């Protein structure tokens, strides 16, 4: 090929690439707008119909005009009509008294916040968050909010990751700050490592909670005390705990393939006896903080392998040989409101 031919060939390649990418951007833009205008697959119900009974609140992930908004279904008819609240969240946790909603505002400097909503889904407070939304939970009476985000430089040059987990009073008031500042007690010894990460809070009451501490390449289930500002280890190898409604058991993720890979599975531990059972048939590779539907059943979100962005909520009995079942299609971040 002569130099002239090569230049012409390169120009042709660039023209083709620009045209192809341009067409794709325009078509995808139109398609996204069309999808975002589409009716949800699930039938709709007015919010008032489900607002009082026991209900499951979740993020709707159908690719339609309600994508990302919080929806509600009754506990006794999870596959039925869903009520849309009109509020969009990446992660949501709800109690009868209100809801915590983590949101991302994209841009060159992307910002993140937790929006606190009253029972009518009206905003009562907003607090800026220092990173990408990961977990949120409310205390049983709805008076405390816990948030976990992860902080990272958005670049090839970044090194690893770091979480930031904070607890504050719902609607403003006391802020306990980053739980990394709490005194850490592992295996009965006070330790002060700087490479610590804390994530996945689940409240017992307005003083006590469980969470995960990661340090030195290991994870621990810890019990936290907001008054003493301490985190005390309960047992090793547990992530993202979730306390059962009766307070007797915690469900969490464990890495069943230690080493370079991470393969999570769900385990349930009796807090009184320390006895731990692994859900053998449960979701391998689950990456979510599980939620208790009742004292015997767990809920969790799972991504669809073939559809990025679409997720489903599954349920599984908290027993060793239980088989998971699909509970709510196109749903994520489930949270159960019992009254």
């Amino acid at each position, binding site marked *: *090929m002569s130099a002239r031919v090569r*230049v012409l*060939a*390169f120009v042709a*390649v*660039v023209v083709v*690439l*620009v045209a192809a*990418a341009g067409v*794709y*951007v325009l078509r*995808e*833009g139109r398609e*996204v707008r069309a999808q975002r205008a589409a009716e949800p697959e699930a039938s709709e119900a007015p919010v008032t119909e489900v607002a009082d009974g026991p209900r499951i609140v979740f993020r709707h992930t159908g690719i339609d005009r309600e*994508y990302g908004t919080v929806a509600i279904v009754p506990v006794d008819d999870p596959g039925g009509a869903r009520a849309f609240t009109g509020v969009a969240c*990446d992660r949501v946790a709800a109690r009868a008294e209100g809801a915590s909603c983590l949101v*991302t505002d*994209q*841009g*060159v400097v*992307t910002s*993140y916040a937790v929006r606190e909503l009253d029972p009518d889904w009206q905003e009562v407070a907003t607090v*800026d968050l*220092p*990173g*990408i*939304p*990961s977990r949120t939970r409310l205390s049983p009476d709805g008076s405390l909010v816990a948030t*976990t985000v*992860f*902080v*990272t*430089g*958005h*670049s*090839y*040059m*970044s*090194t*690893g*990751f*770091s*979480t*930031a987990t904070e607890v504050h009073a719902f609607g403003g008031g006391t802020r306990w700050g980053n739980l990394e500042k709490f005194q850490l007690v592992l295996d009965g010894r006070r330790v002060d490592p*700087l*490479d610590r*990460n804390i994530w996945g809070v689940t409240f017992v009451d307005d003083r006590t909670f469980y969470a995960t501490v990661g340090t030195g390449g290991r994870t621990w289930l810890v019990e936290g005390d907001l008054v003493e500002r301490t985190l005390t280890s309960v047992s090793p190898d547990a992530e*993202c705990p979730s306390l059962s409604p009766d307070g007797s058991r915690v469900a969490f993720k464990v890495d069943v393939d230690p080493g370079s890979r*991470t393969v999570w599975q769900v385990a349930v531990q009796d807090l009184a006896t320390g006895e731990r059972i692994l859900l053998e048939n449960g979701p391998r*590779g689950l*990456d*979510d903080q599980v939620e208790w539907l009742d004292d015997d059943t767990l809920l969790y*979100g799972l*991504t*669809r*392998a073939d*559809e*990025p*962005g679409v997720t489903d909520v599954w349920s599984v009995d908290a027993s060793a040989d239980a088989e998971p079942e699909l509970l709510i299609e196109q749903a*994520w971040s489930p949270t159960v409101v019992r009254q």
Partner: protein
Amino acid sequence: MYISVRDRPTSDTRGAGSGSAARPPVGRVVIILGVVSLLTDVSSESVSAILPLYLTAVVGLSPVAYGLIDGLYQGVSALVRLGGGWLADATDRPKWVAFLGYGLSAVARVFLLFASGAAGIAAVVTADRIGKGIRTAPRDAMISTSTPSEHLGRAFGVHRMLDTIGAALGPLIAFGLLALVPGGYSVVLVVSLAFALAGVALLGLLGPDVRSRSREAAGASRPSAPPFRWRDLADRRLRPLLVVAGTLGLLTVGDGFIYLALLDHGGLNVTWFPLFYVGTNVAYLLLAVPVGRLADRIGRARTLVVGHLALVGAYLCSVLPSSTAVATVGTLLLLGTFYAATDGVIAAIAGRLVPVQARTSGIAAAQTVVAVARMLASAGFGLLWWLLGPAVAMAAVAAVLAVAVLVAATRVRSLDVAELTP
């Protein structure tokens, strides 16, 4: 066998030679390779800007899974770099080895469109980093071979400036597209793929087929240089460079720590964290050419070593009590200066300290030594940070590094006056 050229031009060099202007234009090879890097960096940085959001918000991965994937970015490329260098030297086809590397990264982008779940994305990210590892040393060898020795620093400066412009444009393009198509992560991935393919096409079609050995054969009217041998890397001229660069690398902690120390300074919201990278990049791209030219004048090895004093400054600036604005601007500026004085400069030095048939491997060896030393440094510094806290740890490393720079400065004169390959 080697043409004995002093790396530091004497005072009459400016007027000597071909009699052309004191500053000849930068070669076409450098510009084309620079634009190839620019296009590729737009591609990779637009993806990495949205990857954390995409993985967590859309794919639904947790911090830990994301952290594992992010970690892959760091280590993989250093390991394959030597392999890419060896392949380029063994075949004497640096252009096509570089092409292979750029191509592999472009192909990885195609699969990223379809990958969901941690394992698939980890595989794609790994392929992308392997591509980067393969292409870097052959590309730098081409720049080295096609540039007269006395202008190497400037040539690498121009290349790194174009490269960094691409890195700065990538995130802007990504978030521009997301503003245009809400939630359109696939749009960003497709546009990123188009940029990557344009870079590959530019290299393949218009990138000159620069060969180190053929050039020497023509110049020396010998049939051809001997084939590449691993022991060329043990060249006694290269060894001091590897020792000096490796030792200084052991005292170079990751940028992430410096940025965390800045945050620890107080008064800064964590949401500014991504902008630290942008600030460092801007300082780097503005300084790459002037510092490269300075290196050509005062000696490249000297610039490399003394440039580490900018890093000492960045360490101190990030922890010394001062106003937050001063600390931030000063740290990022000094960090950009450090990169300008080291990143391209080390390739410029290494390429000429080994026989031509080992040029790519020589560059790869120097870059690998630095990368591995810096990984060790970050791991070790994590421990130091844990034991002493950010301020004391930073100050301690700054002090040791300052001493190391002084000691290394006595070793580099031999590097700057070493017999160089053409």
